[in-house]
């Protein structure tokens, strides 16, 4: 357990992008809001409070999305580089001269990419959203309605944070095969893991399209990317929450975002379980690669 902690710390020493990328995302959103280029002050008198409340709800719900997208790229680059990089600079000889099993090392890397990185992204999103909206609450005071200060709604922050945390937890299991694939590629690729990681799926897609005119591979890939959203969330549940408040009045569709959490269809879907099985197999291959391949 103590060893695992140090293995995780070591990943953050080496790959500081995991921490820096979500911070940069937060700063970019803050600057975007400041200059009005991302979140419009929306002082058009034609905008009804109800319409702006919808915008505020939308912003609250999807505020974490840019963090998760950035994290997706960071995690892919991190996982593909992690085992290949230590072979390339030969530091694998140093790491493997310590009494740490390859299973522990590879698991720590998968944990970093698949659990810690998105948790950190969600956490930084959860901290930066109230900070940003609070900063703008006063800024827009006395003006016409604006979506941004309307987001200033502590119960909503809590709901949103729980929603993102749930999304992160689901993502860990849903994206297990993706993360393990990149790790396995990183462990085995003779060179350029980025090509080895991305070209084979693309080639399979192209070959299938050419030979059979179908796109089963393409559907698998796209459903792995976004299929979980419809399986894990039920955004049809409305009318159960307090909704947003503007000047003491409830406006917009009253929702409780926690009601959107519905893991039943996901747990019942074979896609989840097949993915987990494939992921564990790929993880095993990655561990074998770490054991077997000491040279780049």
């Amino acid at each position, binding site marked *: 357990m*103590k*060893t695992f*902690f*140090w*293995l995780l*710390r*070591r990943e953050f*020493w*080496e790959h500081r992008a995991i921490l820096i990328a979500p911070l940069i995302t937060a700063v970019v959103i803050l600057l975007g809001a400041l200059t009005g280029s991302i979140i419009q002050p929306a002082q058009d008198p034609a905008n009804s409070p109800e319409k702006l409340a919808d915008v505020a709800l939308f912003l609250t719900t999807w505020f974490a999305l840019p963090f998760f997208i950035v994290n997706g790229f960071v995690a892919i680059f991190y996982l593909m580089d992690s085992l290949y990089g*230590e072979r390339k*600079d*030969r*530091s*694998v*000889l*140093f*790491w*493997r*001269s*310590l*009494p*740490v*099993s*390859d299973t*522990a090392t590879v698991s720590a890397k998968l944990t970093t990419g698949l659990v810690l990185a998105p948790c950190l992204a969600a956490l930084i999103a959860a901290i930066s959203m109230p900070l940003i909206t609070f900063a703008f609450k006063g800024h827009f005071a006395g003006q016409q309605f604006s979506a941004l200060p309307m987001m200033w709604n502590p119960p909503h922050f809590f709901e949103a944070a729980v929603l993102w945390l749930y999304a992160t937890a689901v993502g860990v299991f849903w994206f297990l095969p993706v993360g393990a694939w990149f790790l396995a590629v990183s462990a085995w690729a003779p060179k350029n893991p980025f090509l080895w990681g991305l070209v084979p799926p693309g080639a399979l897609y192209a070959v299938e399209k050419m030979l059979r005119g179908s796109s089963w591979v393409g559907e698998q890939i796209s459903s792995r990317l976004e299929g979980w959203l419809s399986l894990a969330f039920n955004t049809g549940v409305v009318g159960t929450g307090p909704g947003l408040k503007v000047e003491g009045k409830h406006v917009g569709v009253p929702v409780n975002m926690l009601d959107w959490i519905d893991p039943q269809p996901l747990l019942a879907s074979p896609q989840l379980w097949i993915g987990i099985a494939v992921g564990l197999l790929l993880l095993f291959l990655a561990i074998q690669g770490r*054991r*077997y391949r*000491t040279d780049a």
Partner: protein
Amino acid sequence: MNPANEIGGINGSPVIEARELVKTYGATRALDHVNLRIGAGRIVGLIGPNGAGKTTALKSILGLAPCEGELRVLGLNPYSERARLMQEVCFIADVAVMPRWLKVSDAIDFVAGVHPRFNRKRAEEFLAKTEVRRNARVKQLSKGMVTQLHLALVMAIDARLLVLDEPTLGLDIIYRKRFYDTLLNDYFVNEESTEQPRTIIVTTHQVEEIEHILTDVIFIAHGRIVLDLPTEKLADRFTQLAVSGDRLAEARALKPIHEHETIGRHLLYFEDVDRKRLAALGDVRTPGLADLFVAKLSGGRVV
């Protein structure tokens, strides 16, 4: 017989025992039926030309690569039980293996965190004697300083076997000398834990550099062991004869294993030939490891 040779490793077994090790890379045999037995407390020089199989042998011993045959290091199978084995084995390869992004203080923290036999105080004391700064990253250190850092980490581990693969490659002569002095003084001689004698295996191209510290020497060529002998037995087995032209034919009749000519004299190398007999023909002495290495590996050809 050196008494240290009798002392075993775990339960009296040798530190390393290898039987019929075979490792092939495509068409080349890196290890060709290698048999080895290294007792506790020895300092063994593994010497061979490039591509002879030294590194392959070390990799097998360290569990970094699988091989065929039977191999036990401290009673463990190195490939399948590497993590456990590394509690008692330390390894320094040439300086390039320390990750460049690692901070010196983090390196100490990490090893302290994962290694149950690491003594942080010892590492700190060792580093205090060097110019290595705590907050520097490995990439900011000179090659010599990286070696000192790695050595500081390794010296602080209470290990029973230390494997050094070309540890002084690319270092200047001052660092090279200091490296082996430190090794002997801090690691081998002044060791407080007398529980188990420590064993060292070292490979290097600079044979002369380690000659005086070895207790055993192993020559390896084309994946085979050509010589495996305690250094104090070298004098019994091998003789270098410096002979002038008029006695050359006589000397050659005794079947030298190797011969080469220097200014006005011939140097002939003999294996298992009575030294007194040779002394009658010219000046005799025990050949140095470098000469012996050339003699054994050139296979009798006149160079």
